[in-house]
């Protein structure tokens, strides 16, 4: 059974585009990366799952149940870390976390202190006085303290220093090993690549591609550089080749298609060097946004 399922989700705000016909599934125990630039519709999708907004058409289910109809019940098992964290004025960290814990039908005290320890969070500071990064930590503890079965992380690492980012990723991996399903939205590809097993790419409100990270990297594109005397870039201008560049006697390009075809092509000329690599996710990603 899939934990999250979006089926033809569409959300428009008046004339403005939100998301259009978004469908995907996330299986139990997966860390699903949701990538796209700002304004592509990542937050809109998450907010639809949390019933913060309602779809114009289509439906969303979590644990097989409708997100709107069973919202309160489902949210017992959902942790949410919004992209921007702002909390009630004048509250101390511990007040906010206790308030957050009071919504769940279980005792969260132990986990609360564990998490605060891991994230090195001072519980007795006023939230108003915290830096952005520290507020973010409050958000992380708040989203995890009730040991949810499903996590929605909306650009969670913004504002965290690299050390804290690493701790945070460790935390998420641990949660995942305990069986927690994670929906991870980000525009930073490196972190998605490190953490996620599968990604959805969203572009201008539509799903551009859903694939395993490995498939994305291996099956689709090769980054090829060839060096040699008097190379003519036009020689490589053939179907499947893109981003053809030429500098300092080296020709770089991406290739998608039958590998034998390009090998024969490369074999047809004299070269001084050749490298064939997996492209980074970043490069694949840029390709979707051209």
């Amino acid at each position, binding site marked *: 059974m899939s934990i999250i399922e979006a089926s033809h989700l569409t959300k428009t705000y008046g004339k403005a585009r939100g998301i259009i016909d978004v469908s995907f599934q996330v299986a139990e125990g997966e860390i699903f990366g949701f990538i796209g630039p700002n304004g592509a519709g990542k937050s809109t999708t998450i907010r639809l799952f949390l019933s*913060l907004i309602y779809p114009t058409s289509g439906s969303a289910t979590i644990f097989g149940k409708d997100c709107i109809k069973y919202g309160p019940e489902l*949210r017992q098992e959902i942790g*949410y870390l*919004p992209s921007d964290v702002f909390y009630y004025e004048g509250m101390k960290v511990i007040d906010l976390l206790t308030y957050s814990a009071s919504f769940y039908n279980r005792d969260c005290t132990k986990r609360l202190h564990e998490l605060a320890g891991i994230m090195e969070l001072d519980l007795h500071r006023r939230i108003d006085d915290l830096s952005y990064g520290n507020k973010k930590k409050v958000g992380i503890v708040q989203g995890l303290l009730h040991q949810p079965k499903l996590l929605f992380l909306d650009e969670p690492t913004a504002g965290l220093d690299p050390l804290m980012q690493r701790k945070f990723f460790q935390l998420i991996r641990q949660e995942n090993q305990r069986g927690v399903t994670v929906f991870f939205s980000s525009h930073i590809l490196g972190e998605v690549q490190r953490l996620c097993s599968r990604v959805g790419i969203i572009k201008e409100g539509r799903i551009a591609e859903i694939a395993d990270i490995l498939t994305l990297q291996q099956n689709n594109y090769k980054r090829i550089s060839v060096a040699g005397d008097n190379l003519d870039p036009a020689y490589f201008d053939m179907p499947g080749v893109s981003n053809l560049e030429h500098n300092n006697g080296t020709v770089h390009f991406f290739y998608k298609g039958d590998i034998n075809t390009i090998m024969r092509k490369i074999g047809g000329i004299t070269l001084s060097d050749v490298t064939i690599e997996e492209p980074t996710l970043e490069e694949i990603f840029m390709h979707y946004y051209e």
Partner: protein
Amino acid sequence: MSVNIFKQEFRMHLRSVITWSVAVAALIFVYTSVFSSMAQDAALLNEAISRFPEELRMAFGMNGLDLSTVLGFYSFAFLFTQICLAIQAANYGFSLVSIEEREWTADFLLAKPVGRAQILTSKLLAALSSLTLTNIVVWISSFSFISLFRGDRAYETKPLLLLLLSIVVFQLFFLTVGLVISLLVKRIRNVTPYSMALAFGMYVLSAFGSMLGESVWEKISPFKHFDPNYIIQHTAYDLPLVMISVSAIIISLVGSYVLYIRRNIPAVV
């Protein structure tokens, strides 16, 4: 109702409740304290007031007002108390839900395992309890300051009780109407202009509506529905008008629930 939301909301109102309560108590104190000295010259004062243009007397609810009586004088003070209570209640109404969207805490609260109706009920009850604290302060200060400054002048308790009992409906009007308006507009950046406009707008409708004779506009104002002068003089409410307030409250409440449950919470931009 969720107890935890109620507690949290009530705690957030507390400072404002104290401020408003002290302000209203001080207002009643100042008014009643000048009564004993004013009452001696009340004949002169009544005389002076009767020479005011009728429009002005109506605007300040002074028509047929006898300042030499305890309640006649008190009803004058009560009008200003009403204005304060209206602003306070409208403040709570306008900010009840909008504050979450302004401070972006809606994302926090609505991602919790509670339904929206439950959230709204808890918030409304917390606001009403806060307003009731101020209400109680009005009761206590009215009775104690009147007995402190009335000298040997007697007064009837019943009209005063009617006047004080009207407060809760009066507060509910501004709370619920404020709330429903806040849900009808897209986003409220600052509550004060809205609550001021609603409170003073209603006051102006009541005060200046009467200058124009029979006006439909004044009929929608709770300042008219609970005109202290009328209640003191008749020892009764103007029931048909009170029903307008009650209907407005019910409509606003139902409307608020419908709008809030269907509301799309705006995202951080």
